[in-house]
Each structure stands twice: as structure tokens, then as C-alpha cells.
């Protein structure tokens, strides 16, 4: 592999210098308090690459040293006046004195090391860290299924993916006082509450994570970093798949309800048709008309179902639900309710008393809920809607405000009159 290969690869796949630096900002809450503990803090970055992290640390007041085996990348560091050496990571650690460093870090290096070497690495790090010092190891997150099964292997020098549990256990086992897993750069924000897709489940978990391991120290020293350690970072596979599951569950429940309503409406249609047939016995002309009516109505459910099956194929279950509710169920429900309302006896038979919920009550409840859904849907954010022409999607004009004022006064007057 040519010397420049890794630099080219990194340029292509890890992102620009500024991007990487901004991402590394997530560690600042951990790092900065160390400066008040040790104003003369040193930091050692193993596999320092183009030196983004070294630069960040220098800016906040650390004395830094980096090592890396790739001279073409180190050239970038040297151009920027950073102190770096061409050296193996373990060798770089071994030449440090005991308790000499505040921070030891390795970004995307752990996955390049055989596990035995990684063990030596973590142990050596513990040795060279001052009490309360931090080891930061960042690596691809195999909990992200796309990363774990595919993207990890994009880099031919990667050995094997390291699950967060393994890496944090290793640090604890070696003797670090506390270990925090930080999941980084999740493309999915569960707090935003948008509709999750299967793609989100497969690729939405934080694609990288880091462990931040702290060497034991006096409690008052540890307290300085407590806030950073308490906070939860990133999105886990469990969280994202759980949220997806919940969402799907909700959609199925709503779909079942819609299907139930549709079935009720069909039953009602059949009933109407039957009544019509009986009434039609009397006159031949009427019979003719009603015969047509019956055939139309009887074939209607067939046509409707046919169309639904086709649309379901085209748009999927989830996509159909909203259309279904809007286009079919609300008018059908309204019709069903109107049918009951005109027949008090029938309605009485199907209405419950007290807590006893019968057919009519369920229809009514469903209808009201859908009506409520519907009105909340008619919000007018976008200006491509036929109901919000661009001309009124602007801030109100003077004339609009004037009319609004008059309209409000008129409504208030009308209320007062009543």
C-alpha cells in the first residue's frame, strides 16, 4: 500500500479538517476541567493523522505530542507546527514516564490493532495517565448495522469491529476508575419525532462511538468531570428499533380500526340495499330503478375493495392509512351515523347505557376522533397547498390586518348580541 493511500482515503472518507474538528468538540466537556486540575497538562495522541485533535487541544491550552506511522499525514501536522513523531503507538506510549499525561487518545486506531496489542495499549495508557486523567478511544460502532456489516470493511487495514461493551469492559478490567460510552453523530434525532424508516433502524444508530475512561483519583478531582460523565450521548440500536417498533404498532392499530369501520359500513350498505329491495316490490317501474340501484350498490364494495387492494400494493400499508381515513372512512362513518340518527329505534338498540359501549357509540367515537384528526391536519404551513395560495402565505398585508381587525370586532359584537 503506497504511503499516500491512507491520507487519500482519510481525505475521501473521514471528512474535512474543519468537520472533524467540530465533531471532536463533543469531548471538550471532559477535557477542559482537567486543565483546572493540572494547569500544565500534557496530552498524547496515538495515530494522530492530520492532527485535527492536536490542534484543538493546543488551542485550549494543552501541551501536545502526536505519533503516527504515516509520514504523508504527519507532513500536514508538521506544516502546522505540531510536535509529532513517526512511531508505532505502543512505542510512543512505552517511552512515557509513569503518571505523566492528562489525556491519552486514539481516534480510529483501536480497530487497526490485534486484540492482544489493544490490551497492552489500554494497560500502558493507564500507567502513563495522571490520577483523574482520561483515555479516549474512538472507533466505528458495530451497533450501527450498516457500519458493522459493511462500512467497517471499507478500510482494508481494519482488523475487526469492537462492540462498545467489549471496549468499555476492557478499560474497566484493566483498572480505570470509570468508563463512559459516547455514541457520536447519529443522523437520527429521536426527540424530533419524525416518522422512522427501516433505513433509520439499519443505519441510524451512531456510526462511531468512543469510550472515555478515567483513571481513579481523589473524589473532589473526579467531581470536576461528573456532569460530563452523567450525560447520555447518541442513539443506541435498542432505542431506535424500539421507537420504530412502537410507531409501527400504532399504525397497525389505527389500520385495524379503519378496517373495522369499513366492514361496518359495508354491512350497513348491504342493509340499505335489502330494505330498498323490499320496498320495490310494489311498482314495476320502481323495481326497475331499484334493480339498477341495487346492482350499483352491490358492486360498489367490490369496486372499492379492488381499488383498495391496488392502492395498497402501490403505496404500502402505512401510506394507505391516511388516504383511507380521509377519503373513505370519514364520509362512510358520517353516512353510517346519519343512517342511525334517522332511525331512533335502531340507534337505541345499538347505543349503550352507562359504561356499556355498543356499535353506535363506537362509530360515533371513531368519527369524532377522525374529525379531530382532520381539523388538526389542516394547518397551512406550506404555500403549495391550494388552500394557502402563495399570496396569503406572506406576512399579512396592511389590508389583511385591517379586515382581520374588523372581522374580529364583528364576531365579538355577534357574541355580545347573543
Amino acid at each position, binding site marked *: 500500500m503506497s504511503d499516500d493511500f491512507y491520507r487519500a482515503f482519510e481525505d475521501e472518507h473521514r471528512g474535512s479538517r474543519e468537520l472533524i474538528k467540530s465533531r471532536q468538540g463533543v469531548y471538550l466537556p471532559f477535557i477542559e476541567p482537567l486543565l483546572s486540575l493540572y494547569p500544565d497538562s500534557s496530552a498524547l495522541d496515538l495515530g494522530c493523522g492530520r492532527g485535527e485533535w492536536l490542534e484543538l487541544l493546543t488551542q485550549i491550552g494543552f501541551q501536545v505530542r502526536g505519533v503516527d506511522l504515516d509520514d504523508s499525514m504527519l507532513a500536514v501536522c508538521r506544516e502546522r507546527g505540531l510536535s509529532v513523531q513517526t512511531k508505532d503507538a505502543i512505542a510512543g506510549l512505552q517511552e512515557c514516564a509513569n503518571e505523566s499525561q492528562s489525556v491519552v487518545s486514539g481516534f480510529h486506531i483501536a480497530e487497526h490493532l490485534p486484540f492482544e496489542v489493544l490490551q497492552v495499549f489500554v494497560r500502558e495508557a493507564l500507567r502513563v495517565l495522571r490520577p483523574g486523567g482520561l483515555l479516549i478511544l474512538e472507533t466505528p460502532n458495530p451497533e450501527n448495522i450498516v457500519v458493522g456489516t459493511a462500512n467497517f470493511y471499507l478500510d482494508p487495514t481494519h482488523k475487526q469491529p469492537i462492540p462498545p461493551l467489549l471496549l468499555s469492559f476492557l478499560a474497566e478490567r484493566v483498572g480505570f476508575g470509570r468508563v463512559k460510552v459516547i455514541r457520536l453523530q447519529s443522523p437520527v434525532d429521536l426527540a424530533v419525532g419524525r416518522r422512522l424508516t427501516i433505513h433509520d433502524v439499519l443505519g441510524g444508530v451512531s456510526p462511531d462511538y468512543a469510550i472515555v475512561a478515567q483513571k481513579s483519583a481523589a473524589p473532589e478531582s473526579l467531581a470536576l468531570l461528573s456532569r460530563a460523565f452523567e450525560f447520555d450521548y447518541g442513539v443506541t440500536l435498542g432505542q431506535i428499533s424500539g421507537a420504530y417498533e412502537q410507531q409501527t404498532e400504532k399504525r397497525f392499530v389505527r389500520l385495524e380500526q379503519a378496517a373495522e369501520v369499513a366492514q361496518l359500513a359495508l354491512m350497513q350498505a348491504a342493509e340499505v340495499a335489502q330494505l*330498498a329491495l323490499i320496498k320495490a316490490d310494489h311498482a314495476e317501474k320502481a323495481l326497475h330503478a331499484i334493480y339498477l340501484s341495487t346492482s350499483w350498490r352491490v358492486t360498489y364494495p367490490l369496486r372499492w375493495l379492488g381499488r383498495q387492494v391496488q392502492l395498497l400494493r402501490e403505496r404500502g400499508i402505512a401510506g394507505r392509512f391516511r388516504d383511507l381515513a380521509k377519503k373513505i372512512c370519514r*364520509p362512510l362513518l358520517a353516512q353510517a351515523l346519519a343512517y342511525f340518527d334517522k332511525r331512533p329505534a335502531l340507534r337505541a338498540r345499538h347505543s349503550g347505557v352507562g359504561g356499556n359501549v355498543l356499535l353506535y357509540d363506537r362509530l360515533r367515537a371513531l368519527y369524532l376522533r377522525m374529525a379531530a384528526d382532520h381539523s388538526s391536519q389542516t394547518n397551512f404551513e406550506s404555500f403549495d397547498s391550494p388552500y394557502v395560495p402563495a*399570496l396569503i402565505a406572506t406576512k399579512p398585508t396592511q389590508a389583511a390586518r385591517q379586515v382581520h381587525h374588523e372581522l374580529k370586532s364583528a364576531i365579538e359584537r355577534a357574541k355580545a348580541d347573543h
Partner: protein
Amino acid sequence: MRIVIDLQGAQSESRFRGIGRYSLSLTQAILRNKGDHEVLVALNGMFVETVEPLRAALEGLIPQQNIRVWFAPGPVTANDPTNQERVQISELMRESFLAALEPDVVLLTSLFDGFGDDTVASIGQLEAAHKTVAVLYDLIPLVQADVYLKPNQIYERFYRTKLEYLKRADAWLTISDNSLNEAVEYLQLTPALITNISAACDPIFTKLDAALVDQPGLLQRFSLAKDFVLYSGGADPRKNLTRLLSVYSKLPQEVSDKFQLVIAGKIPAANMQSLRRYAQTCAIPDHKLVFTGNVTDLELCRLYNACTAYVFPSLHEGFGLPVLEAMSCGAPVIAANASSLPEVVGDERALFDPLDEQDFLSKLTRVLTDEDFRQSLIEQGNKNITQYSWDACANKALQALERLGPARPLDKTEINAQRLLQGISQLTSSLTDDELMRCAAMIALNQPRFGPKKLFVDISELARHDAATGVQRVTRSILFELLKHPPEGFQVVPVYGTTTELGYRQAKSFVTKFMAAEPTLPSGDVDEIIETQPGDIFLGLDLQHQVTRYQSPYLSALRARGVGVYFVVYDLLPIQFPQFWPCSLGTAHSEWLHTLAQFDGALCISKAVADELVQWRASHIKTLLRPYKIDWFHLGADIDNSKPSRGVPEDGQAVLATLSSRPTFLSVGTIEPRKAHDVTLAAFENLWSQGMDINLVLVGKKGWLVEALIEKLQTHPQRGIKLFWLAGVSDEYLGKIYDAATCLITASLGEGFGLPLIEAAQHNKPIIARDIPVFREVAGDYATYFSGDASNLAQTVTSWLATNRAGVKSLDSKITWLTWAQSAEQLKKILINSV
């Protein structure tokens, strides 16, 4: 009288059916035959996608500003009871809008739409001065209430409400005597107030040459044998198709062997299947019964032309247009002796009892076997169709409207507005403040204008900051002239938009500063969002790519409203020469052009640019529905009028003295690749090496992508001797340099206009210019032209010097140039003629 046509019939779901075509054809014919009447067309803004096609369909028949779009809060489909409140509000808003147009009569084309679409149609919900006339197509749902109303109570309620509205009309137009009679019988309408204006079919339905009928492969396309019986239209039960199948199956063997039965038109799959099943029970072989599915008008026309006979067994029609279409194509027609069909067919012998299979069978057999009978039906049909034309319908309709006379002397507009607000206040219980605001905004849009039309002049870049570019000099000068001398009947309103907020704002505070006027407004006054009316004009004067792109939905909406949207186009250079600009200016410029090419027109700053734009549009823009105007005007050149800068540097006199000492060629313009200064310099290096004693002066600041050239200029051996590069020159100093120079020289590869040529002419200096259209346009015979590279230019300069060695300045021709006032006059003329 003033007539307002409510054309929702051509906007709603009906636009896909007969009513849509009827509404539009009738409207077009009324506009053709309107005489002295003033006609306005009202459109529903909720059918936003239909506005442009309808404006296009009426283009040339009516000024676009007489097509008015109104707004009301939707959705209002009546099949959803939760829309009820919006329906009522919308009805009031529409009626109030119509009343505010102060018509004598409103003609309603689609009272019965709005169950499954957003049509808003009511009569008499708000007291008004005008009279209302409704077109009544049929009363089929009422006449066959058991079939159409009983099964659907929500629809029945909707339909009966509409019937109540219908009764409130002052007069009615029906499409047949049959519909007229039904209106009297079922609704007890006064016969004297109903006029049958009849109908007509689209002129596309006509007799074709035999050779055209089967082209290309019509019969093959639908698997048709040579001879067939045709039916076209829907498949509702009332169309009586099962009986048609039954009768067809009973044709004598030798007849049915010969003729297929073809059912043309879009029929729902389920209906088609059940008809197929029914055909099987009648033992009709599959290949004998053909369903064409949806056909185009032209295909249908060919089918009419190709069929042996056309049969129309419908039990109930409002008119029965397919009968006329078939006759117009020369097909013999037999039809049911029911509803409107006897009057439309106009031939007793062509009718059969649609419920009596025996009678039906014998008529069908006869038309297929008795050639004399067939021919006589065709002849009768030919005579019959002459009575039907859209112009005839329109004239009957206009007479009916005229009979109603002028509006009642009733109300004033303010009272109308008052009534609307009161009406809404009685209705609303649940509107949120947001929805109320939306209603208010729509009502404001629906209100008529008081005061002059407005010319909105977009100065988005200038209002933000004056970058003192060439474009901005134009923007400033034109704006100044427009504000001083607005086009007649217009008020000029400078506006600006941003990329963060939809809509344009009135640039009040900018104008106060710009015109150096005393502030007439209290400070802290905000620039308001503009209010527009049909007939206004929006002129994109400034060049601001991003703002125009961001505001394009708003500008499209302005256009739909009837505001003319025009842009000034300075050049297409970033598209023609993308290599001469850094990064993606070419893309931005092309996107900007794509945006403005969708509006009403472009005003270019030279004929050359206009020609280029025409060419560019031809290859980049799909043909629009409405014509796109491309015109040009010239820029002004009276420098004194655009606030010239002053000052001559310390070494100025020395430089001017050197320039005067020998022949001096002057090149004016920013140093940038397009100006091809490298070509000019190379030509002069060539001339200097030949020992020619001449100066080259470049005046212009450093631009972009010219690092190598600048380096060369700064280190050139002739620098300060025969080569001068002067940047940051004031207008005053430039004037002196022109006076000291011998000749203007420009090798530029592309320009929008070419102001330096005019400046040279103003200083009586000759010109050597590259031979490009815009220089020819500006300088005509005044200039000496060259084409090609540096050696060509060097030759041209040599021979020019030879002929002008004596320093003779007698110039035969002159460059005529405009003042900014004249330039703005040209611009105004184009704009006002466009409207």
C-alpha cells in the same frame, strides 16, 4: 351591461366531463359575441392548477386582467360534513366578491358541483344588486331520486340545498327543451324565465377523408373488424347498455356475423367486467364486443367516421352530445325515444323505444341492413347539425341575459363588505385566530381596487446595498426616471424581496433616501408587504438571482392573479461564457433565466440580447400556454444624470501629457477574461515590436480570473512608457482620458450593451471594435470592426492608422444615443403595450 361568468364548471371535477367543456365553449362563444357588453370571468383560486390553462384558453378573447381569481378558505367538499362551516363562509365570500365587481348579471356554469371537489356555488346567501342566471344541464338526480339521492343522504342533502339555490336565480338557461320541461315540472320554475340555449359539439368532430380515418392503424389498435356498430359515453345504468347488449345478441345471425359492437370511452373496470359477464349470458362471443377504453377526441372522431351506425340507447340525458358528435362525423344515428334525445336527433325515423327490445332490435337491424335507410339518416343528420353552434348558444344566452336588464339600484361596495363581515360573524364559532387571519387575508385579496394601477419595480439588490455595478447604475437611473415620470395611469412602487420571507415589501424608507426627500413618514414605520390587483405590473429591474428564485412561487401566484410579471435581462453572458466567471455563476444565471422564462416576458437591454434570449428559450424552455413577450430597449448614456464622480490624481496631468504625445488607443472596462485584454495587449506587443510609436491605455479595475494578465501588466517593459493601466478612475478623469486618446479599442467577446462605445462617440473618438452583434447594433457604421485573434487586431490597427495618419477626424456617420429619460420611455412603452 356588465356580465360576470363564474367559470368554475371548467375548473371543478366537471372539467373532465361534458359540463367542463360546455362551460368553456359557451364562455368562449359569449366572449366572441359579446358586442358592447363588458364581460369578466371569475375563477376559484382553490383550483390553482386550472387558472393558467383557462387564462390560456381565453387568451385574445378577453384582457387577462378581466379574469379575476377569488379566494376562500378550503377544503369545502360537501361530502365531508366537517367542512360545513368553511362551505358557508366560502359561499358568503364568493358572493361578496362577485357583488363587488358590480355586475348586472352573474352567469353560473356549475351550480351542482362541489360534492367531491372545492367548487363554491350559492345564490342569494348575501343580498346583492346583481341578478343571477344559472345554467341547468339536467335534473337527473331529482328525476331518478331513488337511484341517485336515496342511497346517499349526505349527497341528497347537498343536492336539495343546491336546488334551493337554483330556485333563487333570476333566470335559467337549459341545454334542451327536455331539461326546460323538467325544470318546470319538478321545480315549478316560471317557464318564461327559462331559455333553452341548446348545445353544440367541439369542431374537432367532423367528416374526415376516408384515407385519414384509419390512420394510423385505428382499427388494428382497437382490434376492430371493418364494420362495427358504435356507442360512446359512460356506463351508468341510465345509459341502458345491458339492453343494448341483449338486443345486439338477438340480431339475425348473418347481421351480427358482420358487425362488431364497439363501446368507446373510459368505463370503470368494474362496469366493464359486469357488462362482459352480461354479454356472456347473452352468448355474445368475446371478440364481437370491443371496449376501447379511454380514447382521445381525435380517435373518437375517427371511430365516428368509421362506424357503420351509431346507437345511443340512453334512458335519460340533459342533451345527448354524442349524438351531435356522431352526426357531425357523418355517422347514421339511431337513438332512444326518451328525454332530450328526440329533439336533438330531430328525426322520428331514427328513434326507438329504449325499454322495448323488439322495437330497438328492428331499428338496429334496419340501419345495419337497409342501405337506403342508412343513407337517409346520414342526410338528415347533415341537415340537423347545421342548427347547432356555440355562437348560436352564446347569442341565445346573451339575449336571455339582456332581457333581465341592469342590476337593481341597491347597494354600495362598503355595504357589501359590511354584510360579508356580519354574515361571517353569525356563522363562526370555532375558527382559530390563525384561520380568521387567513380568511381576512383572502377577503382583502378579494376586495376591489380603489386608485390607480401599480407598477411594482423590483430593486431587491439596490435596496439592500448599492454595489455600484453596471447593473445597479441602470437600476438607479431607470428607477429615478420611473419615479419622476410614472407611466400614465400607473403609480410606481419600488419593492424588494429577500430569500427568507415570501412576498415583496414596499421599499418606502429606501425611496425616501433615494429621492432625497424629506421623510414624510414617522420613523420606525415598517415596509409593508405589497398589495396587488389584476392589471398591475411587476418589473424585475434589479438583478438578484437568489431572491428571484426564492420568490418564484409568489411571482407565479401574482401572475395567476392577473399581474403581468416582466424581467429586465441584461445579458446571457454567464451562460454563453461560463469559463469567464468564477464558480457557479453560469448555473445561477441559467436557473434565474429558467425562472423568469415562466412568467410574462423579458425586456432586454439590446436587440442582440433579445435575439440571444429568443434562441436560448427555444432550446431550453417548453412552450408555455400563453405567449411570452421578448422585447428590447436601449440604456441611457447621459452620464451627468447619474451623479458622476470627480477627481484627478496627482500624476494625472503627466499621464495625460504622455497620452497626448503620440497616438493613444484606449480600452475601457473591468479587467476580466471576457473583455479579452490579453488579445489587445498581444496585438500591441506585436505593433511595438514593429517599432510603432503608439500608446495603449487600459482603464478599469481588476476583475477575476486574470492573475496572469495582471502580473504581466505590472511587470511589462513598456509599463509607464507606452502601456498604461489605470484603475479606480473617476468619471471626471475618464472624460479627460477620452479627450487625450485617439481611438477607443475593444476586443470584448460579449456584451449586453456596450456603453464605452457611446462614451467614445460622445467624445468624438473613433472606435475599433470586435465584430459582434451588439457592437454593430450600438455603433453601426461608426466603428471599424475586426474579428479573430491578436494578429487580426494588429493588422486592423495598422491599416486604421494608415488611413487616419493625418489625424483626420471627419466622421461620416454618428452614433445616436439615448438619455435615461428616453431609455425609461422606451421601457414604459413596451410594458404598457404588453398589458
